[in-house]
């Protein structure tokens, strides 16, 4: 454990909390786009292609003219997302921790610190978005609880809070890290603990 990790661990860990895994983002993982972005782009590209297929006039030029602006707009949206989320994929400013109870993301830069944590318990899911190499993104999120009505103001009617989880971008050996998180969730599930909103990082 290097000096930086020791400092971060001392700052964010609760007394007696054990680290299962710690790491930083690596380069070469996938573009930091939201999940289902590819499906959305595909859907919009499919529409003009379907129209082209069913129409009697098969003009390739018209199809290309129609597809280019859609690709351009989605490309622009992807660029904005990559720019906004990029700072959370930089190794210099981000540290990911998995403890026996929590997944913690620490962002730290220029006297700004952001510590986000999600409990690894019943109701938490870990989803892996694999990159080309062994690196990938992990989306660790909570299902909205019954008492969580106002927090779970639905985004696009998906019935989940906009901030109901955290993302580990560019995690090295992502499959292994997902397994570690899932094992911790399974272990904690056996005890069926209640979530208490206690302070402490």
């Amino acid at each position: 454990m290097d000096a930086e990790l020791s400092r971060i661990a001392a700052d964010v860990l609760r007394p007696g909390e054990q680290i299962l895994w710690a790491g930083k983002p690596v380069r070469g993982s996938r573009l930091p786009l939201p999940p289902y972005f590819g499906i959305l782009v595909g859907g919009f590209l499919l529409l003009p292609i379907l129209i082209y297929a069913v129409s009697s006039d098969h003009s390739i030029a018209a199809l290309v003219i129609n597809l280019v602006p859609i690709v351009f707009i989605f490309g622009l949206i992807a660029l904005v997302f990559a720019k906004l989320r990029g700072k959370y994929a930089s190794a210099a400013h981000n540290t990911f921790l998995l403890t026996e109870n929590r997944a913690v993301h620490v962002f730290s830069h220029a006297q700004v610190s952001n510590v986000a944590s999600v409990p690894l318990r019943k109701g938490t899911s870990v989803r892996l978005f694999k990159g080309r190499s062994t690196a990938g993104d992990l989306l660790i999120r909570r299902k909205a609880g019954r008492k969580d009505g106002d927090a779970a103001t639905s985004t696009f009617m998906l019935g989940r809070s906009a901030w109901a989880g955290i993302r580990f971008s560019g995690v090295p050996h992502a499959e292994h890290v997902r397994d570690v998180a899932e094992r911790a969730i399974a272990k904690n599930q056996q005890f069926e603990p209640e979530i208490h909103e206690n302070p402490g990082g």
Partner: protein
Amino acid sequence: MENSAVSDATLTLVYQRLTPGEQILWAGRPEPIVPLAWNSRLLVLFVKPTLPVFVLALIFGLAVGSKVLYFASPMGMLICSIVILGSKSIRAMPVAHEEYVLTNLRAFSHFQSNGTRILGEMLLDGNTLIQKRRCGQGTTTLVFSRSQNATEPRKVKGLGTARVGFLNLRDAESPLKAAEWSVAINPIFQPPAPATITNLERAWTRN
């Protein structure tokens, strides 16, 4: 000071992080629902009835074989969808679960919902920029970010600014004055100088 406005969990968390001499100046919560600004509301009002028009234009274009209509419609539908979903995502921001605390040294934001917790923390000194933004319906957002200079670059390598925001406040004057006072009195933070390498260490590294 409106300490009663924030939960015990947030106060305890902040008290744990207070440094000697640091005192809480203000604490508060945002308005629970983020309103849209008047121009955004006007745009959504215009776009909502326009979306079915594009759908009808697509069907009509296909029926009569009009190239202009059936090739322009998907683009129109895409732009309308982005505007409608964008406004929905702003209103879906769960700010009701955020709480803010301002000390004479730092700004804290704390989000807590269903187990997920996010604690934002920012130093208030001479290099802190305070931006005030009107949100609509009389609410204001305060954004704290770092100013641009050689030692403390504002941007994270061109990938976006590191910041802490107090969103959607009904009364932003008290925290604004407290933050401005903190920024004025606190000396500019000097990052610790990197350890100097001695000749012996240099020789060791070469070997």
